[in-house]
């Protein structure tokens, strides 16, 4: 009985963790996109460079969010 409870709580933790990771990724990438758009509005001729840098920064932030997704997958599979 207690085993079932422990399993249920572990899965709950995995789900909540993945949700918080999505939240973090959303906030991070949103801020990056926002400041990139602002910078392009200030200097339209630099749009290409700013776009490149924005994509690279977004990939880093997504990487961190995906660390926690991997942890949640490990919880689910274990």
């Amino acid at each position, binding site marked *: 009985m207690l085993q079932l409870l422990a399993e249920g709580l572990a899965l709950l933790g995995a789900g909540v963790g993945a949700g918080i990771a999505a939240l973090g990724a959303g906030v991070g990438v949103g801020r990056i996109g926002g400041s990139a758009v602002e910078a392009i509005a200030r200097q339209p001729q630099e749009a290409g460079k700013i776009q*490149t840098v924005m*994509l*690279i920064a977004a*990939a*880093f932030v*997504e*990487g961190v969010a*995906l*660390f926690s*997704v*991997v942890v949640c997958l490990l919880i689910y599979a274990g």
Partner: protein
Amino acid sequence: MRAIKKYTLFILVLLSVVHFSYGSSEPAEPSTSSEKKEEKFNASEMIMHHIGDSHEWHFATIGETHLTLPLLVIIYNKDTKGLDVFCSSDFRNESGHSSLKEGTAGNYTIHHDKIHSKDENAHIYDLSITKNVASLLISFLLLLSIFLYISSRYKKNPLSAPKGIQSLFEVIIQYIIEEVAKPSLGEKKYKKYLPYLLTVFFFIWFNNMLGLMPGGANLTGNIAVTMMLAVTTFIITTLSANRHYWKHIFWTPGVPLPLRIIILPIEVIGIFTKPFALMIRLFANITAGHIIILSFIGLIFIFNSLGMAPLTMAFGLFMSFMELFVAILQAYIFTLLSAMYIGSAIEAHEHVEHDAHH
């Protein structure tokens, strides 16, 4: 040939839609001769089956026939010091059907795609050609053929304008040289490390793309593969590092002494976390993308209604385009970070005015 050029866009869109045959290739339970049970659709099992490795290559299921390619099983038995080589379709379960979930073949049993020996004390090393290894060999041949062709064209007529495949890859290679290699590695030393960077970029990009095709194997979503790529970057960084790199890690110049003691363990751990992050980033991005697309398609089967199809297919199409973009972006990020790490290891010592020296 001209027709292909005219309809290229149409063919590309068609291909990106056709790969929804993922849904049709879910494994059907091997039908026992007595009764046919209605198995409840297990979404996570289908997803794990599609993104994991396997001893057979399952392309599609048309009706009741599975289009699979049974792959070679190579087991090194440490006790008898011998190699056992046989075909993976030899694994048969109790009713005599070939099955990789529960089966026996000679001295080995297979349980959910993992091979065990019947003898409990035997040490076996599973060196078989699994789906990922076969996909690795195919992509290796593909890369080799494309790039040897391009380089032979450059050698044979170096002064003529590039045509066809050569012009496509020339643009990409030029971009990597100018934007990734030269800024990070410096004008003088970038040529030594350029082959590795180009190899890593095209390897990751091609394997990501191959994994997205119907019947493709999820190679870059295998953490062993990404671990090897990250370890290679780590080895190249460590072997080509000069004195200033190690000095900056173990005895950071320009900071007061107590801070140096604190920075030291952080920097030492940092040597190892950087390749680790490379490994996890690539693995998680590709695997998560596959899981998302498979989940969307699996939604149709979970709800057991065809009315869900247009909506799920629209989401799935959008996610597939995103995955195509992620394929090249992750390859670019891996290459960029590798170049930056190697660059930080080989850079010459610019004399910064340290206050502590006065």
